[in-house]
């Protein structure tokens, strides 16, 4: 698996890592029982603080997507629920595609659409966090 963390997106690196592991499990790139690299190995590979990797693994364990086995490492456990997300994601993409098509017909430029999406996502993320 390859992970790519971007320090300047305004989102904590551990959250980015969590999302990418989750995404990999949803798309089947990571399968049930697969082992993730050790904290030290992944931290060195990504050149991020080991605390970033540790926090992501720990939170993913809480979510039930990872199982941390003492001294052995982190293993993926994909339940049926995770699998069904694959369909949800595909469905969401189709809806977004339709929406973008419509906005283009309304005369909006791609750059404007992108900015609007980003502003709404940031706004939504902040509103959710405050709750």
């Amino acid at each position, binding site marked *: 698996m390859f992970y790519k*963390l971007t*320090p*300047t*997106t*305004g*989102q*904590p*690196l*551990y959250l980015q890592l969590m999302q990418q592991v989750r995404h990999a499990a949803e798309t089947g790139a990571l399968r049930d029982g697969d082992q993730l690299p050790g*904290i*030290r190995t992944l*931290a*060195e590979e990504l*050149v*991020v*603080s*080991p*605390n*970033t990797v*540790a926090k992501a693994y720990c939170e993913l364990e809480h979510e039930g997507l990872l199982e941390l086995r003492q001294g052995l490492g982190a293993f993926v456990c994909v339940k049926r629920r995770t699998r069904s997300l694959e369909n949800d994601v595909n469905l969401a993409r189709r809806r977004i595609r339709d929406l973008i098509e419509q906005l283009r017909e309304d005369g909006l430029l791609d750059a404007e659409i992108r*900015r609007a999406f*980003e*502003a709404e996502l*940031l*706004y939504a993320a*902040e*509103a959710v*966090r*405050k709750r």
Partner: protein
Amino acid sequence: MTNEAVILTQGLTKSYGNREAVRALNLSVGRNRITAFLGRNGAGKSTTIKVLLGMVRATAGGGTVLGKQITDKKANLDTRRRVAYVAEDKPLYGYMTVEQTISFARSFYSDWRTNVERQLLRDYELPTRQKIKQLSKGMRTKLALLLAFARRPELLILDEPSDGLDPVGIENLLQTLVAQSADGVTVFFSSHQIAEVERVADHVCILEKGGLVVDAPLDELRQSYRRIDLVFPFPAPEREFRISGVERIRTSGHQMSVLASRNAEALVERAHCLNAVSVEVAPVGLREIFLETVKEN
């Protein structure tokens, strides 16, 4: 991860004549974390580090490093054995060769790791037989780093460790820092390489004119700092946006740009209420946070 502080100062002050290089500094560095110490040239970073290590005496205030008072001479010796330090000017004996320098340093420390020494010697491609005075700046830095990394300290203090290194050298250095941190070493380092700091640091302290202007986990800065660009159908109502968390406002006619360290959500709400025709929210990188906070002062 514990929250115990390995470095803790209260009202630490160091004056040179009338000039206060460090001004009533309250610094707290957490164990098992990578903490970056940023600031402009002359902000007081190196002086702070030297006072912490007992190399320079504080004018007022005090503190502890690894639980020992920094003003206590005897305790200081013990501290120096548990701390590895790379100085800003990388002082080394010019007449010694690289090889001699390494074996000289090795003889002083019981925590020396010969396997790490060999590994770094290969990674850094240091010319073992060359005299120190013939080394380039980057090579000197690499040798100074090797002398610190070959030990197994509890705390690693680095003053400008990337000085003179090329991009490959910097990447190498950061990987070593990460590996040290994974081994349980607490890292405290000063740097001007903000893009690099932004990747590896857990916590950021920004020093300006001898005092801290930012002291926060990097994730917190990432999540709370926002730039909000607004356009109104009338001249921008700047006064309406002077609420807590707003660090800076720039206005130009109907346009307004707000830098917020928190409360971004409330600002967006307010903009919508005031009929803004365009509201754009963007994250703010560490470089911008740094420039804005040191410019302000």
